[in-house]
């Protein structure tokens, strides 16, 4: 029997926790006194926000490690974290809009929180596009790592903007402002989404390493005439 990788076990645990946390959030936790049932969106929206910022912070650290050491594994980890960050950021924006319409009355407004979050998603998506245009693996690693480090500026802004400037979005909640019966499913889902994120990043990093190995394999030369072929020697695979 094939053994499960550590990250797959973590991912499965994450999915399980997400089911448990969401069940508690949807059926056992009380509704909010003013918002009613729609407040239950918190149990996915807030963890998605936390984890997307955390994942992009990891991408930032991996980017520094990647330029500093030049090792492909850090570049692969950075790619995985950036991609997961973009996907989570897009989910975050969509969840936020779904929550905003019934509570704030609008799908969108150009408030600082929403604007910086949108910039975050578009910026990191742009970095992934930039990556795909560079053929040389070393240059690709350096360029995208620099872009990830410089682009990281926006992530603390997403977090602090509601405290620094006037906004429509409320400031961060804390265990003091959230009923303890709501904190429990929030915590469970946060770990769930964290584990799922780590799983996705590990998978994606592994894929990136495989791609990189594939790139360093020379393309097979045009097939020589049959008569010149020496039996038993594979053609063009000299550097794996």
């Amino acid at each position, binding site marked *: 029997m094939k053994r499960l990788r550590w990250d797959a076990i973590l991912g499965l645990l994450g999915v399980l926790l997400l089911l448990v946390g969401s069940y508690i959030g949807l059926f056992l936790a009380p509704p909010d006194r003013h918002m*009613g049932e729609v407040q239950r969106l918190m149990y996915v929206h807030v963890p998605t926000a936390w984890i997307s910022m955390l994942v992009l912070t990891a991408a930032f650290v991996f980017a520094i490690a990647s330029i500093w050491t030049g090792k492909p594994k850090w570049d692969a980890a950075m790619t995985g974290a950036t991609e997961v960050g973009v996907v989570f950021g897009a989910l975050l924006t969509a969840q936020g809009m779904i929550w905003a319409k019934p509570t704030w009355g609008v799908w969108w407004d150009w408030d600082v929180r929403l604007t910086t979050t949108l910039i975050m998603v578009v910026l990191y998506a742009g970095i992934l596009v930039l990556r795909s245009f560079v053929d040389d693996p070393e240059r690709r690693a350096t360029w995208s790592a620099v872009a990830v480090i410089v682009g990281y500026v926006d992530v*603390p802004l997403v977090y602090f903007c509601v405290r620094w400037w006037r906004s429509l979005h409320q400031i961060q909640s804390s265990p003091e402002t959230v009923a303890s019966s709501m904190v429990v499913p929030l915590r469970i889902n946060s770990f769930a989404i964290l584990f799922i994120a780590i799983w996705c990043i590990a998978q994606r990093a592994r894929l990136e390493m495989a791609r990189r190995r594939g790139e360093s394999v020379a393309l097979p030369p045009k097939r020589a005439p049959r008569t010149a072929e020496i039996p038993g020697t594979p053609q063009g695979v000299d550097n794996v």
Partner: protein
Amino acid sequence: MSERRRRVFITLAALLVSVGVLAYLGFGGIGENLVYYWSPTELKASGDQAVGANIRLGGLVEPGSIEREQDGLTLRFAVTDGEASVPVSAETVPPAMFREGIGVVVEGTMRSDGWFETRRLMVKHDNEYQPPGEMQDLDIKELMKSMQFEESDT
């Protein structure tokens, strides 16, 4: 060694740009020029200058000020920050969260007769999530604080 130096240089340069931009945005006073909404006090203080331009006004719905017109379309209420209060005429369906004492941001224009006219009414709620139960009394100062309507000093 030169390769090593190049790497260190690129890392530090990228970090410097990152930290520099963040410091500039966070502490460079950009918030003074980047105002998402005006408070009733600011709107009142600017007098005629505010008339006609498309702006946002933010504050709390003054308790006891909500009135609905006979036409069933127009909603009238006052937006307050505890000091000044601006009467608002809204031609829109308010979200379910709209009530006395809730935070609102309205987008529209100031009329010369002192009314703020809006078609875009947004609710700005606080960061508290509690089960249904006891309702507290409305205290404007407390509400202002919990909905972050007071300016921070950065």
